[in-house]
């Protein structure tokens, strides 16, 4: 459709907060504050120069499934991240490309360009709002990007256990209405594994629609010494009834690849893979 898919944001790096990705195991740290725990989560090495393939399965409440395949590349530029993604399937979005310069600072809007093969045109996308759905999935743009640490307040609720691993449950609340609007959540509770500082679950209270979203890491693997959530589910519920869910799977993840800056340009976006 002509409509620019404004929400095609960066899948790959997305994982940063979602899975808060990569880090070597650490001993459980006793006596840390909620903020300190989240600083550890945020400080993970996110494995620069990454290439991967993404499979996204969208499942409606009747179990009907749709599938998206994406090739993604990302590169860190200081705290900023450059990403380029190409849709491989389904056929009607094939060759659509999305280029993002994701600026860590919440003060600066990301630069985003979308190449639409049907239009034969590269279109700039202006969207400071991160709360919309990413490609129709249950993940929002906010879910797919690293959160700015200082834009949230943190409170340690309790400790618990998930799949045999000790976790902290940390409540995060936007520091102001602007941040709340941008992310679309009134608050979240994040389950952080104590041994590796990895968020394996999260519950998000959605600002609009009386919905609650459940994020859960279904598969966690160590690749090149880096912890990666290779399968993650996001489920949207209302009145405790699942409305829709999305499964993200990452394949062929490679770190520290030789990726030239030239890949992250409109030139490449228009030429395709």
């Amino acid at each position: 459709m002509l409509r620019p898919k404004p929400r095609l944001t960066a899948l790959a790096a997305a994982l940063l907060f979602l899975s808060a990705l990569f880090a070597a195991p650490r001993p459980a740290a006793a006596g840390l504050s909620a903020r300190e725990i989240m600083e550890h989560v945020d400080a993970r090495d996110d494995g620069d120069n990454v290439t991967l393939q993404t499979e996204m399965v969208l499942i409606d409440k009747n179990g009907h499934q749709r599938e998206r395949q994406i090739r993604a590349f990302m590169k860190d530029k200081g705290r900023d991240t450059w990403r380029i993604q190409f849709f491989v399937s389904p056929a009607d979005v094939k060759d659509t490309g999305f280029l993002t310069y994701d600026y860590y600072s919440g003060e600066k809007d990301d630069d985003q360009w979308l190449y639409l093969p049907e239009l034969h045109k590269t279109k700039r996308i202006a969207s400071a709002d991160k709360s919309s759905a990413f490609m129709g999935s249950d993940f929002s743009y906010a879910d797919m990007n690293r959160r700015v640490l200082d834009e949230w307040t943190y409170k340690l609720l309790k400790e618990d256990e998930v799949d045999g691993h000790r976790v902290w449950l940390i409540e995060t609340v936007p520091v102001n209405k602007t941040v709340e609007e941008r992310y679309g959540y009134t608050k979240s509770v994040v389950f952080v594994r104590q041994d590796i500082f990895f968020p394996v679950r999260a519950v998000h209270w959605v600002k609009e629609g009386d919905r609650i979203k459940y994020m859960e890491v279904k598969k966690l693997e160590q690749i090149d010494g880096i912890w990666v959530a290779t399968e993650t589910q996001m489920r949207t519920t209302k009145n405790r009834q699942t409305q829709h869910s999305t499964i993200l799977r990452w394949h062929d993840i490679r770190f520290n690849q030789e990726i030239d800056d030239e890949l992250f340009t409109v030139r490449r976006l228009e030429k395709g893979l």
Partner: protein
Amino acid sequence: MLFPGKKLTAFLALLLVLVPFGAQAQNSELDDILSGFEEPAVSPAPENSGLDEVLSGFEEETAQGTATTPDASRLPDWLELSGGIGFSTSWTMGSSTPPAAAPNLDHHGLSRLRWSADLTADIALPAGWQARIGTKGFHDPVFALRGREDYPAQVLRRSESELELTESYLQGTLSPRLDIKSGRQIVVWGKSDNIRLTDVLNPLDNREPGMVDIRDLRLPVAMTKLDSYLGAWNLSGIVVHEPRFHKTPGFGSDFFAGTSPAPPEEIPATSWENQEYGLALNGHFQGWDLSLYGARIFDDMGHVAVTASGPRLVHNRITMLGAAANLALGNWLLKSEAAWFDGLEYSLPADSDRRLDLLLGAEYMGFPETVLSLEVANRHTFSFDPALEAAPVYGVEDDLQTVLRLSRDFRHDTVQLTLLLSIFGADGDGGSFERLTVRYELSDSLTATGGIILYQDGDRPLFRHSDQRDRLFAELRYSF
């Protein structure tokens, strides 16, 4: 009157209802319907007292979805095929007066039963070079069904069947900073999505204005494009080898504006002398983009001139100098375009060969799953000769066009709704049309599209006697 016509007023009312609708997000009535949210409204999000209940929600379901890997194609790695098969139909609600040459012609009722297909082969070549060969075609048995003898030959020739080469080119990199692409291709200039000012290189399929799918709107032409890159800048030099012009409705079509057939079209031969030229400088920067354009081309519209062979529709050379820029501000994208045309000629004798087109536009993406855009353009003819107001030019000194578009996704991008309103003239006196389209994704490869398009009469050539063209339309398309 600001917006004449009940249809237009009703359409605007619908638009006004839907815009705030976007702001209400998922809890509004229409959204509920389209999203299939059948649950009654619930109380606000639980407080901390209910936290344990909320957190226990992980136990309810396990991950679904089959673990899949990309399909193993039977094709060799260097070859990729894509395409689709479609069936589209339309129903014309009005009934226009038939031309004298085809007195039995009645456009009312079934006006399309079109089968279409397209196939594209992408070939990976050594050293990163790529080739594409594309073709598409259609056949519409509606003419046979309704009686071919009632239709003028020009309508049948232009609308019954077609088979043509689409994008077919070779592209590659000559040096680290130099790309080349040669063959039939589409090159889009400008920042506007709805109004063409600087986008002059490819002609359009105007056989059924407002009805043509965006996939098929621009016609590819044979050209060679050299792109050089330096930092944020790109300089693009283009030579168009193939003189190709708009596809227009045939005499007898309800979209044909005149009362008698247009004279034969004189298409310049493909020769060295008839090459067209274009130059573009594009820059992409933090928060904004800029493009400058220059082109020496044939006028796609053409004009009627008396030649040694008699009256002919000829295409003279024109020059276009243009610029386009956009600026991203939060959820807003501001757009502007300017195009200066020199060398314009008309079907009436007049000394008004220069025109300045200006466009301002804004796009807002702050409503959930919604894009709202407004574009306004004015085409000002310098030294306007009042003689141009007569038939068949029906010219105006300042030709204002306003386009409003609303696109919104529902049900996790399964349903897409688009409302488009295009008005000519400051008060709509030039004519207008409105289109409502709903696209439903039945599966990953099957989509159904339906909608309605309404036309209002106006004094621009395209809209004269246009209010009988209103159509309902639908399409089913399988893509692979």
